[in-house]
Structures are given as C-alpha cells and as structure tokens.
C-alpha cells in the first residue's frame, strides 16, 4: 500500500542499514522519553499539589519516601537520564529547524556529540547523588 508511511523496514536493504539509521532511532527514543515525561510531569504536578494542599505532615511523610526510599532514588536517576536525552536531542532538533547542520553526516555527528555530553552529565549527577 503506497501511502504516507515513509519509513518502514522495507526501505533498508541490509540489517546494518537499519541499525545505522541514527536519526530514526533518535526519533523513536525522543518519542518514548517524551511520553514517559508526559506521564511523569502530570503525576508530579498532581502528587505535589495534593500533598502540599493536605498540609505539613502529609507532605513531609510523602517526601521522606520520595527522597529516601532506594527505589525512588533509582527512579530519580532514570528520570534525569530521560530528561537529559530528551533535552539534548531536543537541542539537535531545534538546531535542525533553524537550518543549522542539516547535512546528514553533521546530524549524526551532532547526535553523538550531544549523547557524549549527556553521558558525562548523567554520570556526574549519579556521582553527586550517591556521594
């Protein structure tokens, strides 16, 4: 069916071509992290709002779990990784929209440069958090 689905696995002749489609994977991950962050920001707003409104004791009890329990410490690290990916890849998209570095090889280089920066920032965050 020759419709608007430009990207399908049929477009790749070899497995390597598919795995080398950096932009496609960047897009997929941008969408997954984005939807995860939508879920988080709504939950975060509602949870912080309701626990602040229910007063001092409830809020302190909630926060001692959220900022104390190992599971939430792990989720916090995961959250920051998600934000870093979405934010840094987002900068690449903004640059692309402004016409900066639109050549495909520049795009790939930019992507991996941002991922390098993200990895360093994430590692730094984990060290600060655990240290």
């Amino acid at each position, binding site marked *: 069916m020759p419709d608007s689905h430009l990207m399908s696995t049929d477009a790749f002749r070899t497995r390597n071509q598919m795995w080398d489609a950096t932009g496609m994977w960047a897009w997929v991950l941008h*969408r997954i992290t*984005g*939807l995860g*962050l*939508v879920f988080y*920001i*709504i939950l975060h*707003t*509602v949870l*912080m*709002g*309701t626990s*602040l*409104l229910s*007063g*001092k004791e409830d*809020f*302190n009890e909630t*926060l*001692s779990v*959220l*900022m*104390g329990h190992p599971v939430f410490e792990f989720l916090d690290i995961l959250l*920051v990784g998600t*934000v870093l990916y979405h*934010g840094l890849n*987002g*900068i690449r998209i*903004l640059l692309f*929209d402004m016409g900066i570095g639109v050549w495909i090889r520049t795009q790939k280089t930019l992507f991996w440069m941002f991922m390098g920066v993200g990895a360093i920032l994430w590692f730094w*965050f984990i060290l*600060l*958090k655990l240290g």
Partner: protein
Amino acid sequence: MHAWTWLLQRISAVILLIVVGFHIGFLHFSNTGEPLNYGEVVTRLKTPILMVFDVLLLIFGIYHALYGVYSVFLDFDSGKKERVLVFALFVAVGVGIVGFGIFGLLYTAGSL
C-alpha cells in the same frame, strides 16, 4: 493555527531547557541531602523568583507535554472534526492541571 502551536512547542522547549535545568539542579543540590520539608517549600515559594520559575515550569511544561501527545495523535490519520475535538479536550485538561498547580503553589505560599 497549527503553525502557531508548533512554534510555541519550540519556544516552550527553549524555556524548559533553562527552567527544568534549574529546577532539577536547585532541588537536588541546594539542600543537605535530607528529604525536603514543608517549611522549606513555603520559604522557597515566598521567594518571588522561585515562584515565577515554578509557574513558568507548570505552564510551559504542561503545554509542551500535551502538545507532544497531540502531535503523536496527529501522526495517525484523523478527520478535521476529531482533531478539533481532541485539541479542545487537551486544552481543557491542560487548563485544569495548570490551574490546580498554580492554586497549590499560591496556597502553599500563603498568597491566597
């Protein structure tokens, strides 16, 4: 209309890069590693600039989030009627969440 909402998605992205960076950095590294307590939150929210940052984060964060979901919806085939309906629904949800959030912040700061 789509062009404006699309542009606002980019503008909110730039604002969020700054505000979210500050929000995460400030919350994690300005207290002593103890869980945040209610009194601290009240003190912070009585500081005008921190209140402004939280409100900006709410407005642009919720806009960016909901428009993101809306653009996922746009990637599927839909009729004009459906699009208008879904858009209106998202506006209602967004206004509700932002309104609730701002109310919570102002109430906690003792401004209401």
